[in-house]
């Protein structure tokens, strides 16, 4: 018996050693990412990746702002706490110099290096800074509008709408139709037309940029190291006035609406239309969370007087220059973005960035907004991309909210926003 046991243990050891030898890696990587449905989906499949490659992954998922803080503290040119880090699009210029250029990333031993041609163009743009891709785009977030399809298809609503506005009721294609749409469906205290984003956060900057761009003005023009203030005040005032008009048809508490308030209000059937990040749409289609899960339609953001301007909010995966496990980190990123993995991850809640996945009819049948998501990238508008972005974003948030809340007139708010941005550009050495 003893002899048999001894032989068995030796065989087992031999087997495990030979199996371990077959795995291409035997290392651990630290990965810092944001926390939402997408990364939760990735986390569920990590054991599979570890089994295939021999790479152990410390997957650290934190709220968006904490990711930024941790990355800022943990990454420098000399040392890094992370081998792979997710960077939100507007912060790519700030972190760019600390990240290893994507064209220098090694080929994978297990998973094929992802060509940037396979990624939606708008998302690829998010990865570039100074003419170099600083990482692999991984999250194709861009403004998509969600609306109550059931209300639009209701014959009674169709008839009343036509009588009131003189044209057919449909999902709005432009700002004029959007205004009529939100007005028509507003019926307090149970139903409101529009779901804004107004709580002081990055979402406010996105709303402001969406409006400004739709009315034909950018805030800054960045070319190389040159940054100039190009905000057209007249257009910006019109944009703000239009947003204030939409706010008339928003629910109580409309000036303190963040992600949680918007999701809750839409899911309880109180809002007819609003923008949403694709990564958050799974919250609306889950019948456990949403009373309107099967009543939602998806459209491109309505076009403004000057253009259609869906705002992008992509994340990239970057390898810090100081990372010791670059090869293993790249392997993990390739696995995450691989076509083979995409279907599984999409089922688990991921918002993909690969064109072929977004365009796959089988996947689109389950995730109908993917088609709009892909289409929206053709019009994508990004937030000002330069190193002092955070300071500019703060100013936009402050004066946009002051303007839309009526604390200042639109003109006063835009003037103040303009002057403050100019002051910051001077302080940062971009303007005289």
């Amino acid at each position: 018996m003893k002899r048999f046991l001894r032989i068995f243990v030796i065989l087992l050891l031999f087997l495990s050693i030979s199996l371990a030898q077959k795995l291409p890696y035997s290392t651990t990587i630290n990965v810092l990412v944001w926390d939402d449905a997408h990364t939760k989906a990735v986390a569920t499949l990590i054991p599979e990746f570890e089994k295939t490659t021999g790479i152990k992954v410390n997957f650290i998922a934190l709220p968006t702002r904490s990711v930024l803080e941790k990355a800022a503290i943990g990454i420098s040119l000399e040392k890094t706490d992370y081998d792979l880090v997710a960077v939100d699009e507007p912060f790519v210029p700030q972190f760019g110099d600390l990240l290893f250029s994507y064209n220098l990333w090694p080929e994978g031993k297990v998973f094929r290096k992802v060509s940037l041609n396979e990624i939606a163009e708008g998302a690829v743009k998010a990865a570039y800074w100074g003419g170099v891709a600083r990482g692999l785009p991984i999250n194709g977030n861009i403004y998509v509008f969600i609306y109550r399809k059931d209300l639009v298809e209701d014959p009674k609503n169709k008839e009343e709408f036509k009588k009131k506005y003189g044209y057919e009721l449909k999902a709005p294609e432009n700002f004029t139709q959007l205004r009529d749409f939100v007005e028509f469906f507003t019926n307090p205290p149970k139903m409101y037309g529009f779901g804004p984003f107004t709580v002081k956060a990055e979402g406010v900057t996105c709303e402001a940029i969406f409006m400004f761009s739709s009315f034909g003005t950018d805030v800054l023009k960045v070319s190389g190291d040159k940054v100039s203030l190009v905000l057209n005040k007249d257009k910006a005032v019109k944009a703000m006035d239009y947003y204030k008009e939409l706010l008339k048809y928003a629910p109580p508490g409309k000036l303190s609406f963040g992600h949680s308030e918007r999701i809750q209000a839409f899911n309880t059937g109180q809002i007819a239309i609003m923008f949403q990040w694709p990564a958050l749409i799974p919250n609306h289609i889950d019948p456990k969370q949403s009373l309107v899960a099967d009543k939602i339609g998806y459209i491109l953001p309505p076009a403004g007087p000057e253009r259609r301007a869906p705002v992008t909010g992509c994340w990239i995966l970057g390898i810090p220059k100081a990372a010791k496990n670059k090869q293993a980190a790249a392997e993990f990123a390739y696995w995450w973005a691989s076509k083979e993995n995409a279907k599984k991850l999409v089922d688990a809640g991921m918002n993909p960035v690969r064109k072929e996945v977004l365009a796959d009819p089988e996947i689109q049948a389950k995730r109908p907004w993917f088609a709009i998501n892909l289409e929206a990238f053709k019009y994508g508008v990004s937030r000002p991309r330069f190193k002092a972005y955070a300071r500019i974003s703060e100013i936009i948030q402050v004066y946009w909210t002051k303007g839309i809340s009526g604390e200042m007139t639109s003109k006063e708010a835009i003037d103040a926003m303009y002057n403050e941005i100019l002051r910051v550009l001077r302080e940062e050495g971009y303007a005289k």
Partner: protein
Amino acid sequence: MQNKLDFTDRSGGGISRHLFDNVIFLGPTLIFLFAILIYPLIYSLYVSFHDWKLVSTVPPKLIGFTNYINALKDPLFWNALRIQVTFILIAIPLELIIGLLVALLFQVEFFGNRIMRTLLLIPFFVLPSLSGLMWRFMLQPRYGLIGNIYYLLNMEPVDWLSNPRLTFLAVILQDIWRTWPFMFITLYAALSNFPKELKESAEIDGANKIQVFLKIILPLLTPAIVVACFLRLIDALRIFSEVYVMTEGGPGHATTFLSIYIYKNAFRFFNIGYANSMGYMLTIIALLISFYALSKIYKEELS
């Protein structure tokens, strides 16, 4: 001299042996203290004299007092300081008044006194961030508790957190709700230790309740009030997480307290040198107040 002799005798090996013992016993504590308190303080002071960006390939540059001078010129710094001071001047006196009144009330024995006393302490044990979040949801006009009260009264709900003044007021109310039990329990403990004879003899001498309170209780309570206010003051100067989750410093800059402004400069604008200089200025303010308050307490004690 006597001390010196005792000292030599006790150690049995002279001064050097005594020093050796001190190093052995105090050394680890001193090293620990240096590592977690002194070193970070010195390091942050060092950082405050530099143009130091967190995410940068450019090495930090020594710029002397420039960060401090810039802070003094920064209107947002002064705005944050103004907000902080206004908050302290409103919140702490109100907490004191409520705490004192309830402490006096609980001097009277009544049924359920002990249980009530314990229950009243609950808000003080709520985490600041949780308290901020709770108040944020309570004030939500559509589905918050306070919003629903408006509905019950057939009134249009007020969106507290979108109005700068109301938001500031909401932050104060949240702070009072969470921390008045601290004032209460401190003053209650002090009141419970008072010699009853003083009060009784004053009453025999014909003093009414107000006179007893003003002439007997209040003077005796002053050291406890000063200590409680002093501790609350230090706490109020560091207020951060509850405001951050409740308002993120908004709307506009309405609730951008100094701690939030420092945080933003450090972790949103990555200007760690500037943030440290403001942190030091806040520390100096806190130290000056502490010094004043402590000297006042000692004076009172001595007199």
